[in-house]
């Protein structure tokens, strides 16, 4: 499988704070990657550099071999980079179904898609993520975890090549979290979507989800490897976990 | 709320009480019918002031006519009724109100709404139903070039507003050369200003400053300050109430003192002086009418016929209406006289026509040359424009309004040049 995304020595500063310090890594097609690290280590910043919300001070971002450093977010979406928000941002006044249908209509797979088709695709995805019965509910009335599921569904409907998930399971009960992980894995297998997740601070989920884990610390990549290796690594335990899992 | 029949309350009471009686064959000496005149009036919104005055002026004349026994049309006697609704100074309200007046209230004749925008909106409906509209508040010239058949103007058109003022200067001070014109950028004031400019030039004046200010201007300092250096002989202009006051006040504050200041509309209002104090002193204004005009049955000009209340009667009737409407003891402004004159012109035309048919009444208006408390009234048959009526020139002298021009009508000599004129 080929390389999908490459980040090359990206730096980002906010005033005196160095949020990212020459970060480089790459993602292959089909991978499931988790990025973890202490609070404020730069995960969200990195994420925003990839999806185009932030412009890096230095360094470049390549997607499918193409330099996308200067592209605005929506153009990246067109190329196939979708995301969810850490604090979910569904359109509150629209129904769950409509939220997802809009994802289908305007995602990278949405060209030439009719409204009727989009709605039927949306119905399918509702089933995949397990929001059955909520199709007609206004998104604003969902519980927090339901909103996150909706975010996920909307992102899937966009049929991205690369899906970026920001703290998608935070606040979820273990059962729900597991279900989300399963959904994501299923989606990867069925739709061939590569997933990079900042599944942060819930190690059980990280272990279950990721095939590769990248650990960030103070704006740099501390180390990377399989969950098994990483989560036991003494440095990770020291700066991040506090106690070994 | 049909007002106008002076015995109204009594009449209504007896009417209901006597209904059976009437059916039983009670025969009045003479059959009295009702002729309904209607008007959309601006009683709220930006023309509310004019609207209120118009209302009271019209009612005053209606009352006078009814007290004289009404009008006689083809053997029948008609008393007048006056029906009005508030159009909020809003053209979109006018249309439905005019239709209601004509179609539901069976009004045969209308006073037009205030301003040309409102009149234009009302005209097609009035014409559709074939009702006559008398423009008592619209001094616009333009509206009468549009080929309306049933719209007739009562007051002197805007383009001729400053004619008398300029004539007066020319007559009393041949030395005066330079004229500055500062006016509000609005349909009315601009028509006035342009008319004044060309008339001034035709009299040999040099118009050295011709500037306008936006409607709703809050501070005229920028446009006035240069006049301090230019120092024209004559300054005329203005527009309406609010800006006219502001203009007078700021001319005074900024120390701009030409030989003559003539302003539109605002100085004609009785409390102009109360509002401005010393700043009002000496300011002249053209006026359609003043309570002290000397039009009377004794001085009817050649070819004109006297009709209606005397000036004193009009004022008395007006005051009564004003008191009834809770306005206290106030004098009529020229807006009141405009509306009153409109009613007179209409009533006479109906009598002359001997019919209520609008076509015939409109015909009759063409030959009408009336002399009233408002002065001369005569229209151009083709367009309906007012051609008979003359303006007078008033001036604030020692806190009082006096008529200073034309000579034959004047109460006092013009105060000229303005006190404090640096020369």
């Amino acid at each position, binding site marked *: 499988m080929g390389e999908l995304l490459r980040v090359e020595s990206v730096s980002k500063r906010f005033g005196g704070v160095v949020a990212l310090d020459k970060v480089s890594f790459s993602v292959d097609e089909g991978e499931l990657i988790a990025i973890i690290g202490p609070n404020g280590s730069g995960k969200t910043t990195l994420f925003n550099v990839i999806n185009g919300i932030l412009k890096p001070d230095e360094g470049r971002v390549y997607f499918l071999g193409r330099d996308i450093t200067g592209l605005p977010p929506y153009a990246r979406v067109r190329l196939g980079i979708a995301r969810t928000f850490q604090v979910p941002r569904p359109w509150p006044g629209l129904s769950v179904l409509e939220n997802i249908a809009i994802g289908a209509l305007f995602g990278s797979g949405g060209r030439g898609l009719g409204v009727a088709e989009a709605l039927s695709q949306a119905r399918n995805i509702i089933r995949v993520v397990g929001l059955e019965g909520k199709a007609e509910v206004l998104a604003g009335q969902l519980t927090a975890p339901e909103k996150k599921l909706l975010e996920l569904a909307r992102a899937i409907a966009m049929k991205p090549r690369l899906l970026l998930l920001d703290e998608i399971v935070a606040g979820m009960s273990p059962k729900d979290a597991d279900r989300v992980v399963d959904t994501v894995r299923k989606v990867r297998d069925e739709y061939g979507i590569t997933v990079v997740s900042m599944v942060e601070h819930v190690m059980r989920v990280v272990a279950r989800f990721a095939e590769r884990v990248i650990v960030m610390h103070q704006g740099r990549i501390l180390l990377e490897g399989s969950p098994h290796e990483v989560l036991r690594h003494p440095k990770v335990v020291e700066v991040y976990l506090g106690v070994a899992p | 709320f049909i007002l106008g029949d002076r015995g109204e309350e009594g009449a209504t009471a007896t009417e209901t009480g006597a209904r059976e009686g009437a059916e039983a064959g009670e025969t009045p000496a003479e059959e009295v019918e009702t002729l309904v005149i209607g008007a959309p009036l601006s009683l*709220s919104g930006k023309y509310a002031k004019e609207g*209120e005055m118009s209302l009271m002026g019209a009612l005053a004349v209606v009352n006078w006519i009814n007290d004289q026994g009404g009008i006689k049309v083809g053997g029948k006697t008609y008393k007048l009724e006056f029906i009005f609704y508030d159009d909020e100074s809003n053209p979109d309200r006018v249309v439905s109100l005019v239709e209601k007046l004509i179609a539901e209230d069976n009004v045969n004749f209308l006073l037009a709404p205030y301003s040309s925008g409102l009149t234009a909106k009302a005209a097609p409906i009035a014409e559709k139903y074939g009702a006559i509209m008398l423009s008592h508040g619209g001094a616009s010239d333009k509206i009468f070039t549009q080929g309306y058949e049933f719209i007739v103007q009562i007051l002197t058109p805007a383009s001729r507003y400053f004619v008398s003022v300029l004539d007066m200067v020319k007559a009393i001070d041949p030395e005066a050369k330079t004229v500055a014109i500062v006016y509000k950028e609005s349909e009315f004031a601009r028509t006035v200003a342009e008319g004044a400019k060309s008339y001034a030039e035709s009299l040999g004046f040099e118009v050295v400053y011709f500037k306008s200010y936006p409607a709703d201007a*809050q501070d005229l300092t*920028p446009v006035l300050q240069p006049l*301090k250096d230019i120092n024209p002989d004559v300054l005329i202009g203005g527009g309406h109430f*609010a800006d006219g*006051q502001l203009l007078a006040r700021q001319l005074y504050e900024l120390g701009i003192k030409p030989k003559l200041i003539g302003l539109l509309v605002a100085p004609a209002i009785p409390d102009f002086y109360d*509002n*401005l*104090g010393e700043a009002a002193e000496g300011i002249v204004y053209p006026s359609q009418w003043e309570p002290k005009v000397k039009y009377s049955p004794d001085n009817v000009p050649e070819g004109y016929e006297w009709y209606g209340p005397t000036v004193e009667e009009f004022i008395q009737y007006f005051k009564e209406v004003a008191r009834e409407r809770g306005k206290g003891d106030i004098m009529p402004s020229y807006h009141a006289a405009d509306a009153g004159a409109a009613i007179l012109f209409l009533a006479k035309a109906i009598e002359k026509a001997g019919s209520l048919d609008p076509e015939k009444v409109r015909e009759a208006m063409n030959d009408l040359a009336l002399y009233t408390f408002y002065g001369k009234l005569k229209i151009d048959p083709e367009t309906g424009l007012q051609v008979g009526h003359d303006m007078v020139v008033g001036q604030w002298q020692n806190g009082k309004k006096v008529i200073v021009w034309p000579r034959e009508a004047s109460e006092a000599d013009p105060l000229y040049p303005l006190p404090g004129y640096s020369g």
Partner: protein
Amino acid sequence: MEVGQIFATILYGTLIGVIYGVATVGLNVIFGVLRIVNVGHGAFIMVGAYTTLVLYGSLGVPPPITIAASILLGAVLGLITYYLVIKHLVDAPELATLIATFAIGILLQETVKAIYGSDTRGFSWNLGFAEVLNVNIVYSRLAAALLGLLLLIALYALIYRTKLGLAMRAVVQDKEGAMVVGINVDRIYALSYTLGIMITVASGSVLAIYLQSGIHPYMGEIYTLKGFVIAVMGGLGSIIGAFVAGVLFGLFENASYLILSQIEGIQPLVLTRSIAFLLLLTILLLKPTGLFRR
């Protein structure tokens, strides 16, 4: 262009600018805290102008003291309209409040008209003048601008130097957050709204002292419009913004007149309006949230 002209432009541009600033800032306070665009703004200004007109014109109360009366009247009107109307709409869609303030404005205008009639009125409070460079410096206008400035300073101190002000700013940022730290959000709304109305009514008095004429029930409409523009130019919700933008606006109007009046065939004072709005657009293009907001 003469020196006198330039001097007059700067002097009177600044003075009217200060007046603009005061006449705007109430809009800002109310929008800043309650997110309500007060379409009836001008009507409250009109009420202030009438307060001065009536108190000075009929009773002879010195004009500066009428400002205090306006502040009181503003407090009363603010509290009444808040508790009768606005309170029920704080959680309603933004535009519902727009209708409400529109209706309140109409109500004020028509009530004043019913009481005082629709005549345009004025009064005379003449303090004399000094003449410099053939320009009359009118003392009453200076006094009005100074009084306005005082009002602004007082308001600024209240919002940036008191606990109440801090609480107001907190409510703006996150209502629920404000609740959980123990701020009485309801009361802050009532106070902010009332404060906004108080300063607005007071600005009507200041304005009346400045112009001393043109007072009628509908006089406020233009200030609603200009107020919006100045508020946005300075940054909605910003006190300093309103002040700076007000002065800027006043100066700009006057200065552009000076330049435009050199051109033949146009009406410069009318065009200054267009130019002023062009200035607004330019500023917003460069800084989409006004001069003084992030």
